[in-house]
């Protein structure tokens, strides 16, 4: 969690502004509890389709800060070898599907990933991540409906962060809770505080019990808030000041720290130490990544087809 926060901070606040990171730059600041509380429960055979705000899911799957920074900086050793950028990263070996830009497109794909699990009679599950905006897309509807009709093992983690870019919920839908939408698919669902990593964790456990038992998909709406602009260039003036302050008090990392102090006997020093370790790892990773080569233009036409 802290790693995701600090890593994204570094990418957005330093590297992007220094021009070392180019192209669009999205972060999941304030939403870390969702990928952390859920992906931590994934098994090696499971597949994950993170959204552009779920970097922690990649970290949990073993994708390293080095690889991520190299990806962001378009280096040959990044996860897409410089072919794609920023959060468009994934890895076949570690079972993470990189998003494409088209919001919602990964939802029918999740259906297919789960179809293959059922085809082989596995107890594996797909973790699908998406936002509130994605629920307006036709692909969202088609993908969830097919998954429910075919009773496939998918856990949907929907981060309802109140906005799609600049568009608030009430301009996206006429309902208060996204969870209502999955009644269209006869799909069980629940709503949790997406800033409470333990709540997300508990809900995901329930969802996994359901899905791994072959009972079909399960939907979790995580109420949360985007503690940043839509992307690095967006000041998000359209967000009421009050709303921001309200949610900054619910910062998922502060909430977890509070809990650890109260129930796990942790103290300030632990967090200082942790942050120190994280920053060290990031600096090391950054040093490594900055030393990585850019892709060789001679590889320009490679990898479009198998035989080339």
């Amino acid at each position: 969690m802290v790693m995701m926060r600090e890593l994204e901070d570094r990418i957005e606040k330093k590297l992007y502004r220094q021009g070392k990171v180019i192209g669009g730059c999205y972060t999941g600041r304030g939403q870390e509890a969702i990928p952390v509380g859920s992906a931590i429960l994934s098994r090696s055979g499971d597949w994950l389709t993170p959204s552009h705000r779920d970097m922690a899911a990649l970290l949990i799957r073993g994708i390293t800060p080095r690889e991520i920074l190299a990806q962001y900086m378009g280096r040959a050793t990044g996860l897409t070898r410089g072919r794609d950028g920023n959060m468009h990263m994934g890895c076949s070996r570690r079972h993470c599907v990189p998003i494409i830009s088209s919001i919602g497109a990964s939802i029918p794909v999740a259906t297919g990933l789960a179809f293959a699990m059922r085809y082989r009679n596995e107890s594996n599950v797909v973790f699908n991540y998406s936002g509130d905006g994605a629920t307006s897309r036709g692909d969202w509807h088609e993908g969830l409906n097919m998954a429910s009709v075919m009773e496939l093992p998918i856990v949907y983690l929907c981060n309802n962060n109140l906005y799609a870019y600049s568009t608030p919920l009430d301009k996206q839908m006429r309902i208060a809770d996204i969870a209502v939408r999955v009644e269209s698919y006869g799909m069980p669902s629940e709503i949790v505080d997406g800033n409470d990593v333990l709540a997300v964790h508990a809900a995901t456990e329930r969802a996994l019990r359901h899905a791994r038992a072959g009972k079909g998909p399960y939907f979790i709406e995580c109420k949360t808030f985007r503690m940043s602009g839509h992307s690095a260039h967006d000041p998000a003036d359209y967000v009421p000041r009050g709303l921001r302050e309200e949610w900054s008090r619910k910062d998922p990392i502060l909430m977890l720290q509070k809990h650890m102090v109260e129930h796990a006997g942790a103290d300030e020093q632990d967090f200082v130490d942790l942050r120190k370790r994280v920053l060290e790892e990031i600096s090391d990773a950054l040093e490594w990544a900055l030393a990585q080569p850019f892709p060789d233009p001679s590889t320009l036409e490679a990898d479009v087809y198998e035989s080339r």
Partner: protein
Amino acid sequence: MGETTYVEAIRQGIWEEMERDENVFLMGEDIAVYGGAFKITHGMLERFGERRVVDAPLAESGIVGAGTGAAINGLRPVLEMQFADFMACGFDQITNFAAKCRYRWGQAIPMVIRAPAGGNIHGGPFHSQNVEMPYVHTPGLKVVQPATAYDAKGLIKAAIRDNDPVIYLEHKYLYRSVKERLPSRGHTVPIGKARVHRVGSDISIITYGWMVHVASEAAERAAAEGISVEVVDLRTLVPLDREAILSTARKTSKVILLHEDTLTGGLGGELAGIIGEHAFDYLDGPLVRIAAPDTPVPFSDTLEKAFLPSSDQVLEKTRWLHRF
């Protein structure tokens, strides 16, 4: 050992691949219980079971996305679009997700999208379109369209074994109008190889799909007038067989580019670009394009007849180019 129709040839090819590889499965609308709108998957539910022959809801984007996900997770989906026209509903999944996986993250997508295409069946604007070009234009996809039963079977088998997404365009009019005896042992036809359908020396007609037969008819008639026409059947549109295209152009020096698809933005232009750049010195006459006019496909018989390229038209252009 009678003759096998184009439609039956596709069915045989799929059947054999289903037998050969447990990971091959079929998904589409009305393909299992009903056996498909054109009966290509008839009997497969009974033979392979509902695990491998899957009726999907009416959702092309969902079906293509699901196929892509299944391919990522180790299966070899063969998807049926009830009509090629409806691929438009899954356009983003096909061109942005499936087509770009290998390039972006090295993930193979061994998936076939079968789509009944083409006209001359009174299908009107939405059941007759030739949809190849947007996919030909998308790097990462392969595109094939067989003109004969032999190629129909050989190409579907090759497509299913291919490790890249393949758009397999079946011509509805050819389903039952062409047939031939097929080798008993299942054959494949390599993707990326054109075929000289008829050898000739004066003029080359480069085409594909149903138009191969229209060109042959015109060639037959031209022969009676002493004009020797070579007909090249591309079979694969991506990757194009540039050698075959250039060698026939260099051989006859007079080329007609023929397709059923509409003219503007059709494959004829691409072929003109290849030949005009790489065989320019050999050309003794203009690059003649014959295609449908730039309109939707009309429903009414009189209009559809006028819309579709005919052997009369081809013969006339052949004479003109020969005189040139």
